[in-house]
Protein backbone atom coordinates (compact mmCIF):
# COMPACT_ATOMS: atom_id res chain seq x y z
CA UNK A 1 0.00 0.00 0.00
CA UNK A 2 1.24 3.46 -0.87
CA UNK A 3 2.37 5.59 1.98
CA UNK A 4 0.52 8.85 2.44
CA UNK A 5 2.95 11.71 2.01
CA UNK A 6 2.22 14.92 3.83
CA UNK A 7 1.86 17.64 1.22
CA UNK A 8 3.77 20.22 3.14
CA UNK A 9 6.85 19.92 5.23
CA UNK A 10 6.41 21.24 8.72
CA UNK A 11 9.55 23.26 9.25
CA UNK A 12 8.78 25.92 11.76
CA UNK A 13 7.22 24.71 14.95
CA UNK A 14 7.35 28.25 16.32
CA UNK A 15 5.45 29.89 13.45
CA UNK A 16 2.30 30.23 15.57
CA UNK A 17 4.32 31.74 18.37
CA UNK A 18 5.78 34.31 15.99
CA UNK A 19 2.32 35.19 14.67
CA UNK A 20 0.88 35.54 18.16
CA UNK A 21 3.63 37.97 19.08
CA UNK A 22 2.50 40.37 16.37
CA UNK A 23 -0.34 42.77 17.20
CA UNK A 24 -3.54 41.22 15.82
CA UNK A 25 -2.21 37.69 15.65
CA UNK A 26 -3.09 36.84 19.26
CA UNK A 27 -6.21 34.82 18.62
CA UNK A 28 -5.09 32.53 15.81
CA UNK A 29 -5.35 29.37 17.96
CA UNK A 30 -9.06 29.93 18.56
CA UNK A 31 -9.82 29.01 14.92
CA UNK A 32 -11.95 25.86 14.63
CA UNK A 33 -11.85 25.81 10.81
CA UNK A 34 -15.55 26.47 10.18
CA UNK A 35 -14.76 28.31 6.93
CA UNK A 36 -17.09 31.26 7.57
CA UNK A 37 -14.24 33.61 6.70
CA UNK A 38 -13.68 32.02 3.30
CA UNK A 39 -17.42 31.88 2.59
CA UNK A 40 -17.65 35.62 3.35
CA UNK A 41 -14.47 36.62 1.56
CA UNK A 42 -14.72 38.97 -1.42
CA UNK A 43 -11.43 37.88 -2.96
CA UNK A 44 -11.87 34.11 -2.75
CA UNK A 45 -14.53 33.89 -5.53
CA UNK A 46 -12.00 35.36 -7.95
CA UNK A 47 -8.93 33.59 -6.63
CA UNK A 48 -9.31 30.05 -5.28
CA UNK A 49 -5.81 30.05 -3.83
CA UNK A 50 -6.73 32.92 -1.59
CA UNK A 51 -8.48 31.07 1.21
CA UNK A 52 -8.23 32.65 4.68
CA UNK A 53 -9.37 29.49 6.48
CA UNK A 54 -6.67 27.47 4.77
CA UNK A 55 -3.96 30.07 5.29
CA UNK A 56 -4.76 30.08 9.01
CA UNK A 57 -4.77 26.27 9.11
CA UNK A 58 -1.38 26.08 7.45
CA UNK A 59 0.01 28.69 9.81
CA UNK A 60 -1.29 26.78 12.85
CA UNK A 61 0.37 23.64 11.51
CA UNK A 62 3.62 25.55 11.21
CA UNK A 63 3.85 25.31 7.44
CA UNK A 64 6.53 27.85 6.63
CA UNK A 65 5.42 28.05 3.02
CA UNK A 66 2.76 30.49 4.24
CA UNK A 67 5.47 33.08 4.71
CA UNK A 68 6.88 32.56 1.23
CA UNK A 69 3.47 32.66 -0.38
CA UNK A 70 1.91 35.73 -1.97
CA UNK A 71 -1.54 34.65 -0.77
CA UNK A 72 -1.78 36.55 2.54
CA UNK A 73 -0.98 39.72 0.58
CA UNK A 74 -4.08 39.28 -1.57
CA UNK A 75 -6.34 40.12 1.37
CA UNK A 76 -8.27 43.34 0.73
CA UNK A 77 -8.39 43.97 4.49
CA UNK A 78 -12.14 44.59 4.26
CA UNK A 79 -12.82 43.07 7.72
CA UNK A 80 -15.97 41.21 6.61
CA UNK A 81 -14.51 37.95 7.91
CA UNK A 82 -13.56 39.62 11.18
CA UNK A 83 -17.19 40.71 11.65
CA UNK A 84 -18.52 37.23 11.02
CA UNK A 85 -15.99 34.84 12.54
CA UNK A 86 -17.86 32.92 15.27
CA UNK A 87 -14.67 32.42 17.30
CA UNK A 88 -13.51 36.04 17.18
CA UNK A 89 -10.21 35.01 15.61
CA UNK A 90 -10.13 38.35 13.75
CA UNK A 91 -8.89 36.67 10.57
CA UNK A 92 -8.15 39.96 8.75
CA UNK A 93 -5.70 41.02 11.44
CA UNK A 94 -4.30 37.48 11.73
CA UNK A 95 -3.42 37.75 8.03
CA UNK A 96 -1.88 41.14 8.79
CA UNK A 97 0.23 39.54 11.52
CA UNK A 98 1.32 36.83 9.07
CA UNK A 99 2.38 39.54 6.61
CA UNK A 100 4.31 41.27 9.40
CA UNK A 101 6.16 38.04 10.20
CA UNK A 102 6.96 37.50 6.52
CA UNK A 103 8.13 41.10 6.20
CA UNK A 104 10.33 40.70 9.24
CA UNK A 105 12.02 37.84 7.47
CA UNK A 106 12.57 39.91 4.36
CA UNK A 107 9.69 38.53 2.30
CA UNK A 108 7.77 41.56 1.09
CA UNK A 109 6.22 41.59 -2.40
CA UNK A 110 7.77 44.35 -4.51
CA UNK A 111 4.44 46.18 -4.90
CA UNK A 112 4.13 46.64 -1.14
CA UNK A 113 7.70 47.76 -0.78
CA UNK A 114 7.32 50.26 -3.61
CA UNK A 115 4.25 51.78 -1.95
CA UNK A 116 6.36 52.45 1.12
CA UNK A 117 9.44 53.99 -0.57
CA UNK A 118 8.06 57.53 -0.47
CA UNK A 119 6.48 57.03 2.93
CA UNK A 120 9.83 56.07 4.46
CA UNK A 121 11.47 59.14 2.88
CA UNK A 122 8.93 61.98 2.76
CA UNK A 123 6.23 60.59 5.05
CA UNK A 124 3.62 60.31 2.30
CA UNK A 125 2.62 57.94 -0.47
CA UNK A 126 2.83 60.59 -3.19
CA UNK A 127 5.12 63.55 -3.54
CA UNK A 128 3.04 66.71 -3.85
CA UNK A 129 5.05 68.77 -6.32
CA UNK A 130 4.65 72.43 -7.33
CA UNK A 131 2.43 71.43 -10.23
CA UNK A 132 -0.07 69.64 -7.99
CA UNK A 133 -0.09 72.56 -5.59
CA UNK A 134 -0.55 74.93 -8.51
CA UNK A 135 -3.59 72.93 -9.61
CA UNK A 136 -4.92 73.00 -6.07
CA UNK A 137 -4.44 76.76 -5.94
CA UNK A 138 -6.33 77.01 -9.20
CA UNK A 139 -9.23 75.16 -7.61
CA UNK A 140 -9.06 77.41 -4.56
CA UNK A 141 -7.46 74.84 -2.26
CA UNK A 142 -4.58 75.59 0.14
CA UNK A 143 -1.15 74.13 -0.68
CA UNK A 144 -0.02 70.84 0.84
CA UNK A 145 3.11 71.60 2.84
CA UNK A 146 5.93 69.07 2.83
CA UNK A 147 6.86 67.17 5.99
CA UNK A 148 10.29 67.72 7.47
CA UNK A 149 12.24 64.73 6.12
CA UNK A 150 14.42 64.69 9.22
CA UNK A 151 11.34 64.18 11.34
CA UNK A 152 10.27 61.18 9.26
CA UNK A 153 13.75 59.73 9.45
CA UNK A 154 13.89 60.08 13.21
CA UNK A 155 10.36 58.75 13.66
CA UNK A 156 11.15 55.45 11.95
CA UNK A 157 14.79 55.14 12.94
CA UNK A 158 15.53 51.79 14.55
CA UNK A 159 12.12 50.32 13.64
CA UNK A 160 11.66 47.10 11.78
CA UNK A 161 10.11 49.18 9.00
CA UNK A 162 13.33 51.12 8.50
CA UNK A 163 15.31 47.89 8.26
CA UNK A 164 12.84 46.34 5.82
CA UNK A 165 13.02 49.38 3.56
CA UNK A 166 16.82 49.34 3.66
CA UNK A 167 16.76 45.65 2.82
CA UNK A 168 18.47 44.79 6.08
CA UNK A 169 15.81 42.43 7.39
CA UNK A 170 16.43 38.84 6.47
CA UNK A 171 15.86 35.45 7.97
CA UNK A 172 17.15 35.08 11.45
Amino acid at each position, binding site marked *: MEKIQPKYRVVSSDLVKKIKQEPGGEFISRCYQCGTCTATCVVNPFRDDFNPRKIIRMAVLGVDRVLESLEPWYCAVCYLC*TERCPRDVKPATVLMAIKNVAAKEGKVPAAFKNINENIARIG*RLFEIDDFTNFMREDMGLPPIEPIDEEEVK*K*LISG*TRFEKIMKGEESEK
Partner: protein
Amino acid sequence: MSDGYLYFPGCNIPYRENQYELSARAVAEKLGIKLYDKPFTCCGLNTEPLDEFAALLFSARNIAVAEEEGKPLVALCNGCYKTLRVANTKLKQDEKLREKVNERLRIIGREVKGTIEVYHLLELIAERIKPEHIVKKISAKVAPFAGCHSSRPSEYVDFGAREKLEKIIKLAGGKVVRYRDMDKCCGAPLLALSEELGINLARQRLLSMKERDAQLAVTMCPFCQVSLDGLQVKAEQEFKESYDVPSLYITQFLGLAMGIKPEKLGIRENKKDPSRVLKQVVM
Protein backbone atom coordinates in the same frame (compact mmCIF):
# COMPACT_ATOMS: atom_id res chain seq x y z
CA MET B 1 -15.61 71.80 20.72
CA SER B 2 -17.09 74.36 18.48
CA ASP B 3 -13.58 75.52 17.84
CA GLY B 4 -13.28 73.72 14.52
CA TYR B 5 -11.47 70.65 13.27
CA LEU B 6 -8.12 69.77 11.79
CA TYR B 7 -8.64 68.47 8.29
CA PHE B 8 -6.67 65.30 7.58
CA PRO B 9 -6.10 65.07 3.80
CA GLY B 10 -4.24 61.75 3.62
CA CYS B 11 -2.21 60.75 0.57
CA ASN B 12 -4.74 60.11 -2.18
CA ILE B 13 -7.07 63.10 -2.06
CA PRO B 14 -4.49 65.87 -2.63
CA TYR B 15 -2.76 63.80 -5.28
CA ARG B 16 -5.64 62.71 -7.47
CA GLU B 17 -9.07 63.34 -5.92
CA ASN B 18 -9.00 67.05 -5.15
CA GLN B 19 -12.67 67.39 -6.07
CA TYR B 20 -13.56 65.54 -2.88
CA GLU B 21 -11.71 68.08 -0.74
CA LEU B 22 -13.11 70.98 -2.75
CA SER B 23 -16.72 69.85 -2.36
CA ALA B 24 -16.17 68.88 1.28
CA ARG B 25 -14.83 72.33 2.12
CA ALA B 26 -17.72 74.01 0.31
CA VAL B 27 -20.35 71.95 2.16
CA ALA B 28 -18.54 72.25 5.50
CA GLU B 29 -18.39 76.01 5.19
CA LYS B 30 -22.13 76.27 4.54
CA LEU B 31 -22.83 74.09 7.57
CA GLY B 32 -20.52 76.06 9.84
CA ILE B 33 -17.92 73.32 10.20
CA LYS B 34 -14.61 75.13 10.48
CA LEU B 35 -11.61 73.27 9.03
CA TYR B 36 -7.96 74.03 9.81
CA ASP B 37 -4.82 72.75 8.06
CA LYS B 38 -1.49 71.36 9.24
CA PRO B 39 1.11 69.23 7.45
CA PHE B 40 0.31 65.57 8.11
CA THR B 41 2.09 62.39 7.10
CA CYS B 42 0.40 59.26 5.74
CA CYS B 43 -2.10 57.93 8.29
CA GLY B 44 -0.13 54.68 8.58
CA LEU B 45 -2.45 52.39 6.61
CA ASN B 46 0.08 51.69 3.88
CA THR B 47 2.72 50.55 6.33
CA GLU B 48 0.51 48.16 8.31
CA PRO B 49 1.31 45.05 6.24
CA LEU B 50 5.05 45.60 6.71
CA ASP B 51 5.24 46.72 10.31
CA GLU B 52 2.16 47.44 12.42
CA PHE B 53 4.20 49.26 15.02
CA ALA B 54 5.76 51.68 12.54
CA ALA B 55 2.27 52.23 11.09
CA LEU B 56 1.07 53.11 14.58
CA LEU B 57 3.95 55.60 14.89
CA PHE B 58 2.71 57.45 11.80
CA SER B 59 -0.84 57.55 13.20
CA ALA B 60 0.43 58.66 16.59
CA ARG B 61 2.57 61.40 15.09
CA ASN B 62 -0.50 62.88 13.43
CA ILE B 63 -2.65 62.50 16.53
CA ALA B 64 0.05 64.29 18.53
CA VAL B 65 -0.01 67.21 16.05
CA ALA B 66 -3.79 67.49 16.50
CA GLU B 67 -3.42 67.40 20.28
CA GLU B 68 -0.87 70.21 20.10
CA GLU B 69 -3.51 72.27 18.28
CA GLY B 70 -6.20 71.16 20.70
CA LYS B 71 -8.51 70.19 17.85
CA PRO B 72 -10.15 66.94 16.81
CA LEU B 73 -9.14 65.31 13.53
CA VAL B 74 -11.57 64.95 10.68
CA ALA B 75 -10.87 62.67 7.73
CA LEU B 76 -12.54 62.35 4.33
CA CYS B 77 -10.94 59.03 3.46
CA ASN B 78 -12.31 55.86 5.04
CA GLY B 79 -8.80 54.41 5.17
CA CYS B 80 -7.40 57.39 7.09
CA TYR B 81 -10.48 57.49 9.30
CA LYS B 82 -10.25 53.85 10.32
CA THR B 83 -6.49 53.88 10.80
CA LEU B 84 -6.43 57.03 12.92
CA ARG B 85 -9.49 56.04 14.91
CA VAL B 86 -8.19 52.55 15.73
CA ALA B 87 -4.80 54.02 16.69
CA ASN B 88 -6.38 56.77 18.79
CA THR B 89 -8.60 54.32 20.66
CA LYS B 90 -5.76 51.89 21.33
CA LEU B 91 -3.46 54.67 22.49
CA LYS B 92 -6.11 55.96 24.85
CA GLN B 93 -6.97 52.55 26.28
CA ASP B 94 -3.58 50.91 26.50
CA GLU B 95 -1.24 52.82 28.74
CA LYS B 96 1.71 50.51 28.11
CA LEU B 97 1.36 50.86 24.35
CA ARG B 98 1.06 54.64 24.68
CA GLU B 99 4.28 54.77 26.66
CA LYS B 100 6.08 52.60 24.11
CA VAL B 101 4.91 54.89 21.32
CA ASN B 102 5.69 58.06 23.24
CA GLU B 103 9.23 56.88 23.84
CA ARG B 104 9.73 57.20 20.09
CA LEU B 105 7.60 60.31 19.63
CA ARG B 106 9.72 62.19 22.16
CA ILE B 107 12.66 61.85 19.75
CA ILE B 108 10.74 64.17 17.40
CA GLY B 109 9.55 66.34 20.27
CA ARG B 110 5.98 65.08 20.35
CA GLU B 111 3.71 63.12 22.63
CA VAL B 112 0.25 61.54 22.62
CA LYS B 113 -1.78 62.22 25.74
CA GLY B 114 -5.12 60.92 24.60
CA THR B 115 -7.01 64.21 24.45
CA ILE B 116 -8.62 64.33 21.01
CA GLU B 117 -11.23 62.48 18.94
CA VAL B 118 -11.16 61.30 15.32
CA TYR B 119 -14.17 61.82 13.04
CA HIS B 120 -15.24 61.19 9.49
CA LEU B 121 -16.61 64.36 7.93
CA LEU B 122 -19.84 62.54 7.05
CA GLU B 123 -20.63 62.22 10.77
CA LEU B 124 -20.36 65.97 11.25
CA ILE B 125 -22.36 66.74 8.12
CA ALA B 126 -25.16 64.33 9.03
CA GLU B 127 -25.42 65.92 12.47
CA ARG B 128 -25.83 69.41 11.11
CA ILE B 129 -27.77 69.07 7.87
CA LYS B 130 -31.39 70.27 8.01
CA PRO B 131 -34.21 70.35 5.46
CA GLU B 132 -33.83 74.11 5.13
CA HIS B 133 -30.30 73.66 3.74
CA ILE B 134 -31.76 71.90 0.69
CA VAL B 135 -32.64 74.28 -2.11
CA LYS B 136 -32.61 71.86 -5.06
CA LYS B 137 -34.20 68.44 -5.32
CA ILE B 138 -32.20 65.57 -6.78
CA SER B 139 -34.95 63.16 -7.76
CA ALA B 140 -32.82 60.20 -8.75
CA LYS B 141 -32.46 56.59 -7.69
CA VAL B 142 -29.22 56.70 -5.74
CA ALA B 143 -27.04 53.79 -4.62
CA PRO B 144 -25.19 54.57 -1.38
CA PHE B 145 -21.69 53.08 -1.18
CA ALA B 146 -20.26 53.43 2.32
CA GLY B 147 -17.21 51.21 1.77
CA CYS B 148 -15.46 49.08 4.37
CA HIS B 149 -13.40 51.24 6.67
CA SER B 150 -16.25 53.57 7.52
CA SER B 151 -18.01 50.67 9.23
CA ARG B 152 -15.50 47.92 9.97
CA PRO B 153 -13.93 46.71 12.18
CA SER B 154 -17.08 47.64 14.11
CA GLU B 155 -15.21 47.19 17.36
CA TYR B 156 -13.62 50.57 16.55
CA VAL B 157 -15.56 52.27 13.75
CA ASP B 158 -19.31 52.24 13.94
CA PHE B 159 -21.14 55.50 13.32
CA GLY B 160 -23.75 54.12 10.94
CA ALA B 161 -22.09 55.38 7.77
CA ARG B 162 -24.56 53.87 5.31
CA GLU B 163 -27.56 55.16 7.26
CA LYS B 164 -26.01 58.63 7.21
CA LEU B 165 -25.56 58.44 3.43
CA GLU B 166 -29.18 57.30 3.09
CA LYS B 167 -30.41 60.14 5.27
CA ILE B 168 -28.66 62.67 3.02
CA ILE B 169 -29.94 61.03 -0.18
CA LYS B 170 -33.53 61.20 1.10
CA LEU B 171 -33.19 64.72 2.40
CA ALA B 172 -31.98 65.80 -1.04
CA GLY B 173 -35.07 64.30 -2.63
CA GLY B 174 -33.46 61.11 -3.90
CA LYS B 175 -34.67 57.55 -3.65
CA VAL B 176 -32.34 55.12 -1.86
CA VAL B 177 -31.49 52.02 -3.87
CA ARG B 178 -30.63 48.85 -1.95
CA TYR B 179 -28.55 46.38 -3.92
CA ARG B 180 -26.73 43.09 -3.63
CA ASP B 181 -23.43 43.06 -1.70
CA MET B 182 -23.77 46.76 -1.00
CA ASP B 183 -21.50 46.55 2.05
CA LYS B 184 -18.67 44.71 0.31
CA CYS B 185 -15.24 45.93 -0.75
CA CYS B 186 -14.91 48.24 -3.79
CA GLY B 187 -11.79 46.48 -5.06
CA ALA B 188 -9.39 49.41 -4.80
CA PRO B 189 -7.11 47.88 -2.13
CA LEU B 190 -6.33 45.06 -4.55
CA LEU B 191 -5.07 47.31 -7.33
CA ALA B 192 -1.51 47.35 -5.99
CA LEU B 193 -1.19 43.60 -6.49
CA SER B 194 -3.64 42.92 -9.30
CA GLU B 195 -5.53 45.41 -11.40
CA GLU B 196 -7.62 42.56 -12.79
CA LEU B 197 -8.90 41.63 -9.32
CA GLY B 198 -9.65 45.24 -8.47
CA ILE B 199 -11.66 45.74 -11.66
CA ASN B 200 -13.57 42.50 -11.12
CA LEU B 201 -14.71 43.58 -7.68
CA ALA B 202 -15.68 47.06 -8.87
CA ARG B 203 -17.63 45.48 -11.72
CA GLN B 204 -19.59 43.29 -9.30
CA ARG B 205 -20.74 46.33 -7.35
CA LEU B 206 -21.62 48.24 -10.51
CA LEU B 207 -23.59 45.32 -11.93
CA SER B 208 -25.66 44.98 -8.80
CA MET B 209 -26.36 48.73 -8.75
CA LYS B 210 -27.43 48.56 -12.38
CA GLU B 211 -29.62 45.54 -11.62
CA ARG B 212 -31.65 47.80 -9.34
CA ASP B 213 -31.74 50.66 -11.89
CA ALA B 214 -29.58 53.04 -9.88
CA GLN B 215 -28.96 56.29 -11.74
CA LEU B 216 -26.22 57.57 -9.46
CA ALA B 217 -23.89 56.19 -6.81
CA VAL B 218 -22.58 58.19 -3.87
CA THR B 219 -19.28 57.47 -2.13
CA MET B 220 -17.49 58.78 0.94
CA CYS B 221 -13.92 57.61 0.29
CA PRO B 222 -11.34 58.31 -2.42
CA PHE B 223 -10.59 54.58 -2.80
CA CYS B 224 -14.26 53.69 -3.36
CA GLN B 225 -14.65 56.60 -5.75
CA VAL B 226 -11.58 55.60 -7.79
CA SER B 227 -13.16 52.14 -8.12
CA LEU B 228 -16.72 53.12 -8.95
CA ASP B 229 -15.74 56.12 -11.06
CA GLY B 230 -12.35 55.57 -12.72
CA LEU B 231 -12.56 51.80 -12.90
CA GLN B 232 -16.14 52.02 -14.18
CA VAL B 233 -14.83 53.66 -17.34
CA LYS B 234 -12.13 50.99 -17.64
CA ALA B 235 -14.47 48.08 -16.93
CA GLU B 236 -16.99 49.33 -19.49
CA GLN B 237 -14.26 49.18 -22.12
CA GLU B 238 -12.75 45.92 -20.97
CA PHE B 239 -15.96 43.95 -20.49
CA LYS B 240 -17.79 45.75 -23.28
CA GLU B 241 -20.66 46.46 -20.91
CA SER B 242 -22.46 49.59 -19.88
CA TYR B 243 -23.24 50.20 -16.20
CA ASP B 244 -24.04 53.84 -16.52
CA VAL B 245 -24.02 54.63 -12.82
CA PRO B 246 -21.93 57.80 -12.50
CA SER B 247 -20.55 58.13 -9.02
CA LEU B 248 -20.42 61.34 -6.98
CA TYR B 249 -18.79 62.02 -3.67
CA ILE B 250 -21.51 62.51 -1.07
CA THR B 251 -20.23 66.09 -0.63
CA GLN B 252 -20.67 66.75 -4.37
CA PHE B 253 -24.17 65.28 -4.27
CA LEU B 254 -25.19 67.22 -1.18
CA GLY B 255 -23.45 70.35 -2.46
CA LEU B 256 -25.63 70.32 -5.58
CA ALA B 257 -28.74 69.96 -3.42
CA MET B 258 -27.55 72.87 -1.29
CA GLY B 259 -27.34 75.02 -4.41
CA ILE B 260 -23.55 75.14 -4.62
CA LYS B 261 -22.34 75.59 -8.21
CA PRO B 262 -20.97 72.43 -9.92
CA GLU B 263 -17.64 74.25 -10.53
CA LYS B 264 -17.25 74.73 -6.79
CA LEU B 265 -17.75 70.98 -6.33
CA GLY B 266 -15.24 69.87 -8.96
CA ILE B 267 -17.84 67.73 -10.77
CA ARG B 268 -15.81 68.13 -13.96
CA GLU B 269 -12.97 66.13 -12.42
CA ASN B 270 -15.05 62.93 -12.16
CA LYS B 271 -14.05 60.36 -14.76
CA LYS B 272 -17.50 58.97 -15.52
CA ASP B 273 -19.31 62.09 -16.64
CA PRO B 274 -22.49 62.56 -14.57
CA SER B 275 -23.73 65.65 -16.43
CA ARG B 276 -26.36 63.89 -18.54
CA VAL B 277 -28.15 62.29 -15.61
CA LEU B 278 -27.70 65.40 -13.46
CA LYS B 279 -29.46 67.46 -16.14
CA GLN B 280 -32.47 65.17 -15.82
CA VAL B 281 -32.68 64.87 -12.04
CA VAL B 282 -31.51 68.12 -10.43
CA MET B 283 -34.43 70.52 -10.09
